[in-house]
């Protein structure tokens, strides 16, 4: 009886008199079948291999199983290997070439789509900014008109310093300004002419500086003229008569 000291967990409780050597458990057919792949793929230790051989020497059925499987595998492996037909490569190459050609075209399509989306997004953003800009510019324009009107109380309060700080808001004859009511451009009347009656007059102390546009980066004077405490003190309302 072969004696082994390997893998004691698999071994039975039967022991020799010395109590240090273990006898291998005889294999049954169920274990043979369940672990046959390990045996077939040579994944077993020498002791386990011995147990398989021992079982096959005693069990004709399992020995037959092993024999049948080996012969069947050999027959399958002996079957002639298929080779692609003559037309395989001539068919494959045009398809690969088509893929090769279409690959950059696909990526071009993607970039064109992305460019279109980006352009659309830019148009939307610019439109929104333009509306905000027009709104803030016209509000500031009204405030500046009042502030810069020669001889007005606003000019008297702000003095010449405000005019120097905010020259772009000084109304000049014939200067183009955005018209937020007619969604276009209008020509401002000369400074000495009175504005038309239908202009929406706005109080100077309304929070003009609250409208913010990132496109209007410049004039610190804008805040000075519109949000200065001096303008808040002025409660003049325009009268165009």
């Amino acid at each position, binding site marked *: 009886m072969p004696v082994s000291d390997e893998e004691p967990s698999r071994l039975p409780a039967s022991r020799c008199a010395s109590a240090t050597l273990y006898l291998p458990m005889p294999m049954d057919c169920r274990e043979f079948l369940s672990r046959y*792949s390990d045996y077939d793929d040579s994944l077993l230790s020498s002791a386990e291999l011995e147990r398989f051989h021992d079982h096959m020497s005693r069990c004709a059925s399992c020995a037959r199983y092993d*024999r049948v*499987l080996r012969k069947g595998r050999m027959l399958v492996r002996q*079957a002639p*290997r298929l*080779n692609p037909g003559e037309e395989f490569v001539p068919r494959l190459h045009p398809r690969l070439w088509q*893929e090769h050609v279409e690959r950059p075209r696909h990526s071009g399509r993607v970039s064109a789509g992305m460019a279109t989306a980006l352009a659309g997004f830019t148009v939307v953003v610019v439109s929104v900014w333009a509306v905000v800009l027009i709104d803030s510019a016209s509000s500031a324009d009204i405030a500046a008109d009042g502030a810069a009107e020669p001889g007005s109380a606003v000019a008297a309060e702000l003095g010449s310093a405000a005019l120097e700080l905010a020259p772009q808001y000084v109304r000049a004859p014939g200067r183009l300004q955005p018209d937020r009511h007619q969604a276009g451009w209008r020509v401002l009347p000369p400074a000495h002419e009175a504005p038309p009656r239908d202009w929406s007059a706005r109080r100077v102390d309304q929070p003009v500086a609250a409208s913010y546009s990132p496109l209007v980066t410049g004039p610190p004077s804008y805040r000075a003229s519109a949000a200065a405490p001096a303008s808040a003190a002025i409660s003049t309302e325009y009268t165009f008569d």
Partner: protein
Amino acid sequence: MAQALRLQDSASRTRSHELAELEDAQLAAASLDGEARAFTVLADRYHARLLNFIHRMIGDRERAEDLVQETFVRIHRHLQRYDQNRKFSTWAYTIAGNLAKNELRNRSRNPMVLFQTIKRNWEADHRPLEWEDNRYRPDDLYRKRDLRAKVEQAVSELPEHHRVVFVLRELEGKTYEEISEITAVNLGTVKSRLNRARNSFAQLIAPLID
């Protein structure tokens, strides 16, 4: 002019020889860099292997060739997704196996395809015998060929998830780890499926062999 053409032809052949000596991953990288011949070398390297694998899976040679073509087209299309640290063959077999699985699924939904396959096999059975080996007499050859056909038939009768593991292991020589990656199942499942596939195969062929 002729001299220039000869030089160009010689350079082309030299480049082809260089490509043929590259590893699969290097060929894939070269193909991604725009070297079209690199992919041709890859295709030449794998088309027969993939054809046999898919043929074992679906049992229809013509359709298997179509699927091998489709496999290469997909490999080419998605080559940038290939992880060059892993084996190219595993990736290629994964794509081929998925296509074969889809084919079998479609076939089960469309019995007409199955009928065509049966008809084709019937025609193949009635081909005249080919004299393969002079050492055997015609009746031996017939018996051997008949036995081999029946054994191959036994492989095709295995359930699909057992068959793919059996074919990859026994015929393609893949390791358990590779089979696990190709079939996207864990290692323990691969082992148990392979064992069951072998048991089923042995039961099917036992009356024929022994």
